């Protein structure tokens, strides 16, 4: 049976430290743009930590929500792309083919989560960051869209390794950079088609919900949070 990769993010565990953001930048060769351009809305954080305040003063709680591409099963970004740069893979990933992208930015407008990023300039890194580029991830030139891939390079590498060793993939064997880095183990990655996997178990949790679920995008990221009576 084909895999269906999904993630779970436990908001009760997330401390908002931002390690996932840093790990993602390092793993996926996401260029930094500097403070000035970041203020102009050009920063590219494939995963970001949104901070929200809940409750009325003085009973106020701070909630962090890591938001990455939700890898929707019914993704609004896919049908609108005129060149198939944004398309669905057999294992349920929402792939972005940089070489095929002509930069209409329609996918980013259609995305309700605003997790797609445009390359406004050719990539550059402040020294010595240019020495730590990941050889497994392609660089993106000016004018294309990019976004979270669930670290597809790690998924493929692990799957190839398992095939070479003639065995099945183990649950938890594949770890995207954000999952690997999270000190609070708030992020869990795995196969949603395997009912016994950790991520499947969490997806069925009564604490679970999907982001903007009512839009019908069928996201594959489950957010876990203590439910309270309003």
């Amino acid at each position, binding site marked *: 049976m084909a895999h269906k990769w999904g993630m779970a993010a436990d908001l009760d565990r997330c401390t908002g430290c931002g390690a996932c953001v840093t790990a993602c930048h390092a793993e996926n060769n996401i260029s930094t743009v500097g403070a000035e*351009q970041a203020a*102009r*809305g050009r920063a590219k954080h494939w995963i970001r930590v949104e901070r929200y305040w809940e409750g009325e003063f003085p009973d106020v709680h701070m909630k962090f929500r890591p938001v990455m591409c939700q890898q929707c099963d019914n993704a609004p970004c896919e049908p609108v792309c005129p*060149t198939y740069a944004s398309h669905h893979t057999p294992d349920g990933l929402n792939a972005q083919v940089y070489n095929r992208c*002509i930069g*209409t930015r329609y996918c980013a407008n259609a995305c309700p989560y605003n997790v797609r990023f445009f390359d*406004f300039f050719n990539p550059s890194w402040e020294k010595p960051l240019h020495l730590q580029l990941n050889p497994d991830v392609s660089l993106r030139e*000016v004018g294309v869209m990019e976004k979270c891939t669930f670290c597809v390079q790690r998924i493929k590498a692990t799957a190839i390794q398992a095939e070479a060793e003639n065995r099945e993939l183990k649950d938890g064997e594949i770890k995207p950079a954000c999952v690997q880095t999270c000190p609070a183990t708030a992020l869990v990655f795995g196969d949603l088609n395997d009912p016994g996997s950790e991520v499947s178990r969490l997806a069925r949790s009564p604490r679970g919900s999907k982001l903007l679920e009512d*839009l019908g995008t069928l996201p594959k990221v489950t957010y876990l949070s203590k439910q309270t009576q309003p």
Partner: protein
Amino acid sequence: MSSVGTMQPVPDQVRADLLRPLLRTSWKFYSLVLILGAIVVAALTAWATQMTLGFGISGIRWPIYWGFYVTNFVFWIGISHAGTLISAILRLVNAGWRRPVTRCAEVITAFALMIGAMFPIIHLGRPWLAFWLFPYPSERMIWPNFRSPLVWDFFAINTYLTGSVLFLFLPMIPDFAVVRDRATGMRRRIYGALALGWRGTPTQWHRLETAMQIMAVAIIPVAVSVHTIVSFDFSMAPVPLWQSTIFGPYFVAGAIFSGIAGLIIAMALLRRFLHLERYLHPVHFQNLGKLLLMMALLWGYFVFNERLVTYYGNRVSDMQVFWRTQRLTFAPLYWTMVGCNFVLPLVIMGISRFRTITGCVIASIGVVIGMWLERFLIIVPALGHKYLPYSFGVYRPQPVEIVITIGTFAAMALLYVLFAKFVPIISMWELTAVQHPGPALIPPATAEHPLGETHA
């Protein structure tokens, strides 16, 4: 029919008046072309700079990925609905007063479409790969994605452009022949080629009339579909206030509305600078002014409908954008739009005393501004306030976008000026319709017969 002849301008006089701009060139023409050309070159330089330095020099940002460029795209495609659609409808109902109006209208369509179609390319991140929208047989067997409204756009605009150019060209053939017969040298050869061997035989007239009828019928559904498909670019995406079933007719109405306004402005300028007072009468402006009034009412109805339904539905994400335009950041622009698009034309065009040429031009300028704002207000506020409050954003247009926007208006004016220089801007043979053995046509409008109905 003899009485009709006396009502019309003498054919020789018509030719002299309408061929004058082709044969005589003043220094004013050269300086105008120079100024407009300089602005167009500035816009092209701005675009080249954007390609060289990167798209980052524009004001586009996360999450507002469409701004001035897409606004201009929708605006110019809207303006293009002036010509062909209006002229086709007026031809089909055989409104006699259309005669001097049709060609200046059809030219607007052709040029506005060319300019509008530039914007999807200008706004691309990698415009040098725009040809991937063509369904050409590539060696990698990759086709464009036919589910994407942008691909529909590509086909709709190309169909409309081809149809409009044909529709514009057909009735120019007899006029090219007139120029050919009076010109010498190089000019004679060029116009001879354009006249496609026109001799004015009854068979040729008959074929021309038939072709015109077919084109007039065929172009109307194409024109309606084009702006419906442009509206699909928005209504197909799950963005607050974009996902609306009313967008198709709303956009078509807005397009015709701004198109008529553009036509009135163009006609007033032609009348003044080419001294066409004998052909473009106040009655033409009055008739177009009435059309403008009708479209203003229709536009007002659509806006009211769209706004009320949103307000009553009261969805959180929709209301964010709703109040942003109605009362908050974008409110000054919004109410300017309502004033320009509804109040102004209603007052000026609704009161017959104000329905003069000047009045029509003032109302039309208002409508052009208002309709540009309308497109901007549909695109930008919605993208800036899309669902998650964390990713709200503010769009600030940058010099490169402003220069390119101004440049397109100059480009439109330049193309129009050049066209009026090389082609009689009013169809000569249609003005003197009874001179050829075609089907009996209704004579042109005069002061006594404002609608050009049969005089006898």
